[in-house]
């Protein structure tokens, strides 16, 4: 059961500055655990970000993306209250979707 993402979407003019923190081990399959066993490969392969239901960014990742990955992007033509939906799929087929609303500049 994956842990929730943290999504911040702050309006700057009419561009939403979107910052996403995800929890994921992003294992390369090259690491050995304390018992000397290889920790199997397990990483997020796809991330999509949608703005009011329309995908605006579609990412493919390798295991070279860091553990507990971060993604930053900027969405044009955004307004306060717009929905930002983030979905990730990993190499084991697990999926996770979280949503947040665009807020005004603090």
């Amino acid at each position, binding site marked *: 059961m994956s842990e929730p993402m943290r999504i911040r979407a702050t309006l700057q003019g009419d561009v939403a500055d979107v910052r996403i923190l995800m929890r994921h081990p992003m294992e390369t399959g090259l690491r050995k655990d304390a018992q000397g066993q290889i920790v199997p490969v397990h990483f997020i392969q*796809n991330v999509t970000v949608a703005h009011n239901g329309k995908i*605006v960014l*579609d990412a*493919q990742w390798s295991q*070279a*993306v860091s553990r507990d990955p971060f993604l930053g992007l900027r*969405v*044009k033509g955004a307004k306060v209250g717009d929905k930002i939906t983030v*979905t990730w799929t990993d190499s084991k087929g697990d999926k996770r979707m979280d949503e947040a609303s665009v807020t005004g500049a603090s």
Partner: protein
Amino acid sequence: MHEQRRRFLLITGAGAAALSGLLPPFNADAATWNKAGFESKALNDAIKSLGAANATETRDISITAPDIAENGAVVPVAILSKIPNTQSISILAEKNPFPLAATFDIADSAEPYASVRLKLGETTHVRAIVKAEGKFYTASKEVKVTVGGCG
């Protein structure tokens, strides 16, 4: 008959990555994962898998990354393309065992910008490849990777 078969292989094989740029980029499903690219060990193979073998060096791609990273496991890298009609941004770590790190397909309604954190195995050039109007552009920046101190 042979011609048809060759075309079929082209579409489903390595050519799929190059052809995908011609298809509408945003349908209901996420982009197929570029297995050939991500599993390339040689930098040139990774670049070829993107169709970017003849990418033009440019100053219109800005790479924000530290000169020195005290922890190679979490290196922040942000790419901003100033090239009009940018379709995608790919990021490679030239000296990594598998150089291709990420590809971002970007709709017109998002800025041609992406910020992530990468694992860098050693001091390396971080290379950005931008696809715009079917053409490829590239820039790179060296990031020194070292081990921290205490602990």
